[in-house]
């Protein structure tokens, strides 16, 4: 019995290692291939590179607009996430901490945004941004991302802010603190963990998004990283070492952040689904 159990666990452990290999190996090959020349890639695809030469990465860095795309993605993601968390927390604070008429209706209005895939409203969005002169601008993209991210941020923050005890703001009020000060100095510092979840949940899809830039952005120097990658993959399609270097460099930023914050990433991205 004991023996059988150990044998079974050993087998399961083996299958898990196989699975981990299937998940990781393609990414390892991507990174190793980034150091290879075309000849090396085709002759020995599985071998380690002959040298860890940065020639391919250097070409991506200097010959293409990679740095530009990277900076655009960083800016657009950072601005969108900050605005989502700020606006979302403000609205959630009003809904969670004050009784007022229409409070339920306002909350439902935000939540209804969770149900609709905004991609399917892309035609009117395109026309509207065009009317506002925001087509082919980073601001237009940010506004759409904010609209897309607000419902989940309001949902998470309202749920969290409702759990904070009322005595805290009561005592702040008795001491004569204004509503603004009560919110900023007493209540919101306690809500930081929920803000982190809301930020990660929105940052990852925005960082990775391809659809909205594809429709809205046409000027090359305004493109985001995933969109720029499609340009780059077309231009260098005969130079596989450079292609793998481009993929590796594109995957690098989020992978590094993920390794550091994996617990928060997993919680943030699955919690939205589980609630």
């Amino acid at each position: 019995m004991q023996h059988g159990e150990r044998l079974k666990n050993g087998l399961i452990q083996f299958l898990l290692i196989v699975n981990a290999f299937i998940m990781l190996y393609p990414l390892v090959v991507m990174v190793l291939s980034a150091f290879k020349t075309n000849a090396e890639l085709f002759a020995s695809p599985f071998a380690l590179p002959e040298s860890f030469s940065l020639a391919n990465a250097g070409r991506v860095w200097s010959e293409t607009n990679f740095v530009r795309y990277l900076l655009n993605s960083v800016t657009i993601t950072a601005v969108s996430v900050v605005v989502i968390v700020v606006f979302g927390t403000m609205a959630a604070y009003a809904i969670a901490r004050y009784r007022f008429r229409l409070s339920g209706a306002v909350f439902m209005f935000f939540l209804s945004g969770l149900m609709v895939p905004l991609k399917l409203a892309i035609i009117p969005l395109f026309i509207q941004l065009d009317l506002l002169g925001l087509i082919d601008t980073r601001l237009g993209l940010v506004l759409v991302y904010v609209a897309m991210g607000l419902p989940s941020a309001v949902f998470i923050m309202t749920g969290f802010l409702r759990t904070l005890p009322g005595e805290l703001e009561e005592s702040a009020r008795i001491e004569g603190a204004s509503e603004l000060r009560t919110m900023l100095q007493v209540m919101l510092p306690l809500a930081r963990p929920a803000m982190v979840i809301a930020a990660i949940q929105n940052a990852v899809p925005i960082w990775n998004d391809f659809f909205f830039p594809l429709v809205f952005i046409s000027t090359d120097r305004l493109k985001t990283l995933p969109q720029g990658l499609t340009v780059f993959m077309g231009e260098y399609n005969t130079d596989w070492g450079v292609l793998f270097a481009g993929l590796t460099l594109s995957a690098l930023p989020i992978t590094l952040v993920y390794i550091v914050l994996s617990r928060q990433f997993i919680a943030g991205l699955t919690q939205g689904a589980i609630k």
Partner: protein
Amino acid sequence: MTTDRLRRAALARRKRSLWIAVLLAPGLIVMGLFVAAPLLSAFRYAFYSFHGLAPADFIGLRNFTEVLTEAPFADWTWRALRHNGVVFAALMVAQNGLAFLIAFVLLKALPGHRLHQVIVFLPVVLSAVIVGFLWKLFLHPLFGLVNAALALVGVQGLPWLGDERTALGAIIFTNAWHWVGFPALIFLAGMQRISKETLEAARIDGAGDWRLMTGIIWPLVAPATTIVFILTFIGSFNWFELPYVMAGLNGSPGGATDVLGLYFYRTAFGNVTSGLQDFGHGSALAVLMFLFIAIVSGLALRVLRRREIQV
């Protein structure tokens, strides 16, 4: 004296209302302008013909009837819908079935289980563009890693993405590799909520792994299954980025990988060759996709929720 107090109370009330309005306004304005307004317009536009970017004439249901029943649109519409159905079914069985097994094994908390969670979830955080291009290179008929590996064991590989019989399957496989960690960790979270006593009791009653998995865990993770089903459904019928990157806007080869997302984009914004915008038919397609997804997932949600209560 009392009037003074009343006035002060009224002032405080007004100040409070103003403060609440200030808190709500930015969010409501953005949502109104970029979610509510476009969604309402989306329905309206479907009933119009277009001149360029502007709606021109009200034409009733014509966009809808053309898209659903008339050549050449109807053939494309139904073919794409069929492909989305295949994608959904395949992902439910292969990707989510595997995810369930991974979750069950991780529940045992063998050494290294936390590291394994981090590893299966890693591709989830990468962009579909990166994953799509990476596997497109791996699946290359001559220089790709997949066929090189098959050659090592003496198997002649296929041009996976170039063959009509395998192209859709190859993209579905890539999707499963990309996303499997997501349903796996949702299932795992559901399994971890089952009380230890329940599992212990089943063990003591002599239930083996198979009985435990099918008889105890499967019914008790019903809420997680509901979520995975609905999210996979919505994802499968909005599928766009992976087929766009791996098969191109026309769903090559020969439309074998054409799905609603690609077809809608092509219709609305013009494909690479013609570049013509057709917002009328595009809007009709968007409305139909929206209704289809909303109605089916609404019905599925009711059925699945009832199943949760029963167990």
